[in-house]
């Protein structure tokens, strides 16, 4: 392990030189609430606050001037690693005029001048084999800020699963934290990972910091083709943010004698893993509760090694911030076998339901349900009914007879695919779509996976991508309205096959009849700065199943991607719009032109996070388009919060790949969009209005 730290230029000194900002540190210990003082407004946690809002009250950029935005500065992340990154997902923080973010294939940390983008300092840990073996490489989703009014720290988890605490002013590791500023998260984990280099665990998310407590989740390899059902368990831990001392561990897979152990039949909790919290943790600092959106147990699509509902798999769990003790939980999917794992940060909203003020937690999901609970008690605000679901026929699988289905709000995103979802632009396209679909299984939400056969390759679904994936939702704390992006047609076919010898000890993994079953890799796996050369061999040739497209058009009807405004005061969808320009290959398709075009479709992507300001909902596009209005590029769009009407758009030379944020420095509002994709490597692009101020 080698530390690479450069430019230990004092952040304060740098700011004094380039702006008139006087950095001020607040008295309260924690993360510094967003505020506007002396022309400075902060964004101090990944989601703007610990409630998950992605909201800023700034309104300098508004409906009247959004389209006038221009690029203020750009910061390319290529040099932060041994190769460029094409999957930049980090959302920066802004603290008193300084931008802090992770970036690059090394997951380095940089501090930038918020007004100019100039590099103030950079820190990176060179972790060698441990980083190369990580299930979660690349720049990650971001980092965290903490202060007690005197000390100021930046904390993040490295690719190799180490928690690092840096002096926010210099970028130097804090000698009072862990061992010389570094805490090895693969130890003191209530389980033995064996070799610390190869023991499987990592995480993309930014830590949640509240008061003196920092909470860390866990993530693993993609669960399509896991090596073993007995994988690492995704326990959640909290540490003292000053010292790195472990404060508590929450066993997401209960140990014998603990609550929930008996929901894993045949003691199967002992031999199953995953069940981590890979998305952001939200915290209610008044109630003293942390909200954990727990993912599924090992093997995304086959649970025969873990009969039973399996708590706390796919549950929302509220734990005591100080002790980690469970206060309440709700299992959203029993015995999850669809890869519909919890993906979104819990949204802690204060709303008024039936005339009464309520403190609720809302959770967007891949399956298009928006679950709402009283966040003190865990009682659903509107009934969530146990509903009978189809039982599958996969040998050795255990099926839950029912699943919880919310009665309110209505489903906000497609969560099943039926014949009525197939494209029908013309009778010919409809007929071809039906023929293609006949080789697959269609069905509503919770249609169980099938064994792949030459007659039925798999179930057509959007299980893995969703719906709403890791960017999650956002909300306006003043109105109680949540704004949630969802992909409507991020579809694939999922079937199961036995793995070849040596691939996995699970009887059935993801495969396609007629094709060799091979290991499927996860987000950034094997792509980090230290990744080794591949072994020989790879995917075989052969024809494979047909594409899920008809004459080059997507098999399913638009909308391909939407933003929904969900009124959590009454459980209704206030508005829903297609987000994103119609893709070129659809807009320019002869069949579409022949029918005179179609309304804007949005885009099939799950990478879109939304930003909410005083009056706007802001989100960029994740696909390149070339239109009559603009050359090849993507648009950053602004919508009126009340109506969903588009009120402005600005050109981006690359596509949004991480969630945007906003801040103010020297009286000027900036919006940063993390971008990457296609031939464009990772770059933070900061927009502001023209002129000095």
């Amino acid at each position, binding site marked *: 392990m080698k530390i690479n730290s450069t430019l230990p230029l004092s952040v304060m000194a740098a700011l004094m030189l380039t702006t008139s900002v006087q950095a001020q540190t607040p008295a309260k210990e924690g993360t510094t609430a967003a505020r506007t003082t002396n022309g400075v407004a902060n964004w101090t946690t990944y989601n703007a606050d610990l409630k998950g809002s992605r909201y800023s009250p700034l309104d300098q950029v508004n409906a009247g001037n959004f389209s006038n935005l221009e690029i203020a500065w750009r910061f390319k992340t*290529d*040099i932060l690693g041994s*190769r*460029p990154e*094409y*999957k930049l997902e980090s959302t920066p923080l802004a603290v008193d005029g300084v931008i802090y973010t992770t970036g690059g294939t090394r997951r380095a940390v940089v501090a930038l001048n918020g007004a100019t983008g100039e590099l103030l300092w950079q820190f990176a840990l060179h972790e060698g084999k441990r980083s190369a073996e990580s299930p979660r490489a690349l720049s990650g989703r971001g980092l965290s800020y903490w202060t007690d009014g005197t000390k100021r720290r930046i904390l993040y988890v490295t690719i190799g699963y180490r928690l690092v605490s840096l002096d926010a002013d210099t970028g130097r590791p804090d000698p009072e934290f862990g061992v010389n500023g570094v805490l090895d998260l693969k130890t003191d984990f209530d389980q033995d990972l064996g070799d610390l280099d190869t023991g499987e665990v990592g995480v993309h998310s930014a830590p949640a910091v509240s008061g003196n407590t920092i909470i860390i989740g866990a993530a693993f390899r*993609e669960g*399509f083709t896991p090596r073993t059902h007995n994988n690492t368990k995704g326990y959640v831990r909290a540490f003292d943010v000053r010292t790195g001392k472990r404060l508590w561990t929450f066993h997401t897979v209960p140990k014998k004698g603990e609550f929930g152990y008996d929901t894993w039949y045949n003691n199967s909790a002992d031999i199953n893993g995953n069940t981590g919290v890979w998305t952001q943790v939200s915290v209610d600092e008044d109630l003293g509760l942390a909200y954990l959106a727990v993912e599924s147990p090992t093997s995304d699509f086959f649970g025969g090694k873990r009969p039973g509902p399996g708590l706390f798999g796919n549950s929302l769990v509220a734990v005591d911030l100080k002790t980690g003790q469970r206060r309440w939980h709700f299992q959203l999917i029993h015995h999850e076998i669809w890869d519909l794992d919890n993906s979104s940060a819990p949204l802690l909203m204060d709303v008024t339901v039936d005339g009464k003020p309520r403190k609720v937690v809302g959770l967007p999901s891949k399956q298009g349900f928006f679950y709402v609970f009283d966040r003190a008690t865990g009682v659903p605000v509107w009934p969530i009914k146990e509903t009978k679901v189809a039982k599958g026929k996969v040998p050795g699988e255990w099926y839950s007879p029912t699943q919880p289905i919310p009665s309110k709000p209505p489903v906000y995103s497609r969560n099943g695919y039926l014949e009525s979802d197939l494209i029908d632009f013309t009778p010919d396209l409809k007929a071809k779509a039906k023929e293609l679909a006949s080789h697959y299984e269609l069905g509503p939400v919770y249609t169980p996976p099938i064994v792949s056969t030459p007659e039925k390759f798999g179930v057509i679904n959007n299980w*893995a991508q969703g719906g709403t994936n890791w960017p999650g939702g956002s909300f306006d704390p003043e109105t109680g309205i949540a704004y949630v992006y969802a992909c409507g047609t991020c579809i694939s076919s999922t079937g199961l096959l036995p793995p070849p010898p040596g691939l996995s000890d699970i009887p059935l993994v993801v495969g396609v009849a007629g*094709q*060799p079953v*091979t*290991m*499927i*890799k*996860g*987000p*950034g*796996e*094997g*792509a980090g700065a230290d*990744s*080794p*050369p*591949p072994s*020989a*061999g*790879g*995917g*075989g*040739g*052969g*024809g*494979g*199943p047909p*594409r899920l*497209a008809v004459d*080059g*058009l997507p098999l399913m009807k638009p909308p391909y991607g939407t933003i929904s405004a969900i009124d959590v005061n009454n459980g209704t969808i206030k508005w829903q719009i297609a987000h994103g320009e119609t*893709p*070129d*290959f*659809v807009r*320019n*398709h002869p069949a579409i032109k022949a029918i005179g075009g179609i309304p804007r479709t949005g885009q*099939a992507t799950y990478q879109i996070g939304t930003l909410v300001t005083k009056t706007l909902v802001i989100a960029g596009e994740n*696909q*390149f*388009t*070339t239109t009559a209005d603009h*050359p*090849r590029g993507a648009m950053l769009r602004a919508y009126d919060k009340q109506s969903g009407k588009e009120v402005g758009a600005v050109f981006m030379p690359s596509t949004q790949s991480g969630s945007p944020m906003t801040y103010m420095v020297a009286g000027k509002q900036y919006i940063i969009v993390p971008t990457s*994709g*296609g*031939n464009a490597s990772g770059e933070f692009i900061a927009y502001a209005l023209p002129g000095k101020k």
Partner: protein
Amino acid sequence: MKFALPIVVATVMAGAALAQDAGKSVWQGIYTTEQAARGAGVYAQRCGACHGAALNGTGEAPPLIGGEFISHWDTMTVGDLYDRVRTTMPQNDPQSLTREEYADVLAFLLKTNGFPAGGQALDKRSEVLATIGITAQKPANGG
């Protein structure tokens, strides 16, 4: 930033060459079927594990076939695509194929996406490939 130089060179060259050539296009038969067949073999060995045997993509690796893929590269050049692949793929060992192999793989991708084969093999030099434009729509004059 070792990859940056070739791209800069390529761009400069592209401008010069395009001026002479009035723009070559992927629709003009810019690779050979033999080259694409070689590329299919390399693809199966080095690319298919992530992008899928049928180029449909698996997990996080995007599809390399179809409208999404082509419109992603619309108005760019074959040189842009070549250098993107060459400098970043395979993701865990970029630049581990020879330039000829990368060109072969590209020929395979072009063939699979419906661009016609021709009498001349795809060049292995980025600066030459940068003179060939990718357009999703076949030009009215046939390229």
